[in-house]
């Protein structure tokens, strides 16, 4: 280790502490009893798990977890399949029409979801999509497709065309070429898409709070926010609920993270 590197070590240490702080305060708060008024900087010194039990029952988190899992898994699957299908012709056949379609799809990134909230709400009421899984799933898929198409198109662009031609000579149709040759090569960028989409959908609040108001249809963020509205003096419960909600997606991320950066730089930054 050279001298300049050693000079930066204290700085890196301070940065790490600073970025751990919120999680530290979240954990201390979630394990403190209701009548514990000690500073949030102090660790409880005892293990009080009633917060977790109370919030799990009171906010109906079991049902909310179930809804979250269904909505996230189905939305991510659909996003990956539709995104890969759309990206292939856009990356390989750059006709004038396809170039226009690509620009159109990517430009959706700029549309803030809340801009079209009022008409969407009216439409959801009219077609009976309120409080339904399918309605919110279609919305999530729609709003995650632009980024997905961007990453897939960029990545397919880096796959040599000679591969397509060789497969065609071997008798593949264009469709079987896509399924047999291209799809298996998409693994690294698919990992990135899966992480981005599942994090976004698991954590979604702005759509869920509007379209999933029924207590049985709620997802975790909606349950927590309505719980927070009623009991905002009971911070321990909110902390315990927040910790429980964040845990599954954090574990998924920690398992997939080594694929994440590779895919991100291959599909987006360099592609």
């Amino acid at each position, binding site marked *: 280790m050279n001298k300049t590197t050693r000079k930066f070590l204290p700085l890196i240490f301070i940065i790490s502490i600073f970025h751990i702080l919120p999680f530290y305060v979240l954990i201390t708060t979630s394990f403190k009893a209701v009548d514990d008024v000690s500073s949030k900087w102090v660790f409880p010194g005892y293990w009080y798990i009633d917060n977790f039990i109370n919030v799990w029952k009171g906010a109906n988190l079991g049902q909310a977890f179930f809804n979250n899992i269904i909505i996230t898994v189905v939305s991510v699957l659909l996003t990956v399949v539709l995104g890969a299908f759309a990206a292939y*012709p856009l990356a390989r056949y750059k006709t004038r029409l396809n170039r226009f379609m690509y620009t159109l799809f990517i430009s959706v990134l700029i549309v803030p979801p809340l801009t079209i909230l009022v008409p969407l709400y009216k439409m959801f009421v009219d077609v009976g999509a309120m409080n339904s899984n399918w309605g919110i799933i279609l919305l999530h898929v729609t709003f995650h497709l632009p980024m997905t198409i961007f990453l897939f198109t960029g990545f397919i662009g880096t796959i040599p065309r000679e591969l397509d031609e060789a497969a065609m000579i071997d008798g593949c*149709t264009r469709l079987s070429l896509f399924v047999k040759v291209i799809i298996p090569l998409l693994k690294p960028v698919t990992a990135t898409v899966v992480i981005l989409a599942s994090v976004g959908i698991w954590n979604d609040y702005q759509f869920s709070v509007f379209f999933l108001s029924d207590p049985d249809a709620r997802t975790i963020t909606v349950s927590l926010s309505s719980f927070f509205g009623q009991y905002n003096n009971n911070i321990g419960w909110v902390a315990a609920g927040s910790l429980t909600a*964040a845990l599954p997606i954090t574990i998924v991320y920690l398992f997939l993270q080594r694929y994440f950066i590779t895919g*991100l730089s291959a599909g987006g930054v360099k592609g």
Partner: protein
Amino acid sequence: MNSKALLNLMYLPTLILFSVLIFFPFIKGIDISLTNWDGYSQEFRRIGLENYKRMFSDPDILNVIKNTFIYGAGSTLFQNIIGLGYAILLNISIKGKGIVRTIVYLPVIISPLIMGYIWYFFFQFNGGAVNDIILLFRDKPMNLLADSEVNVWIITFVNTYQYLGIAMIVYLAGLQSISKDYYEAAQLDGASGFSQFKNITLPLLAPSITINVVINLIGGLKLFDVIKAMTDGGPGYASSSLSSMMYQIYFARQDAGYAASLGNLMFVIICLVSLSALFYLRKREVSE
């Protein structure tokens, strides 16, 4: 149908989804903004540009637009400066830098709503972690989240903190694609560390800067969840962005026509700001 035509239609499902759930509602939203609809009843009438006139004479609108710009520009500035600093720092070869990168990236994984609650535990009036420190120096705690001069910056800070990891990762990927040869040649010429940064690192990072600035601007300008969790846009509309003001107007005040026109204003602002940033930065990329 031959297989080539079939392949061209592979984006058809996406096109249908976008048409039904984005393009159609977008046009419908313009229509709704010209009515006095309350969001529920069957009866409403067209009132022309009345909602837009009302918008520009709304006593809160200027402050809300100002807040929206602070959230957008403030977060973008801080995320890029600090994110680039972190990337340069964590690009040097030391043991454990992977763990530090993960720690910095972790908040990206947490729901912005929950991130808002976590920081609420810091800044809340009664028993907040920040007030524990303030009480060491002052005899009274401070109600920082109710102070309209401060709460906008606290929310900007939380949004910056949450998405710093993305800026860092994009800059790290950019830094790693710069060839070491440039730096070796510059060192032979005796260029200082700062001049290497200015003449090699920054110009070659131009594409990463573009991606980061545009993503951060779009994200900051449409900020919603964090505001909802920390102040609910209040007191009054003091810390509201256009999104949270729109939410209030639609749900608390049942004024759907006016909410739709606020939504359209938000779209125009985000479009203008992010597209001008994109074109400006792209042009710089080419000339460098």
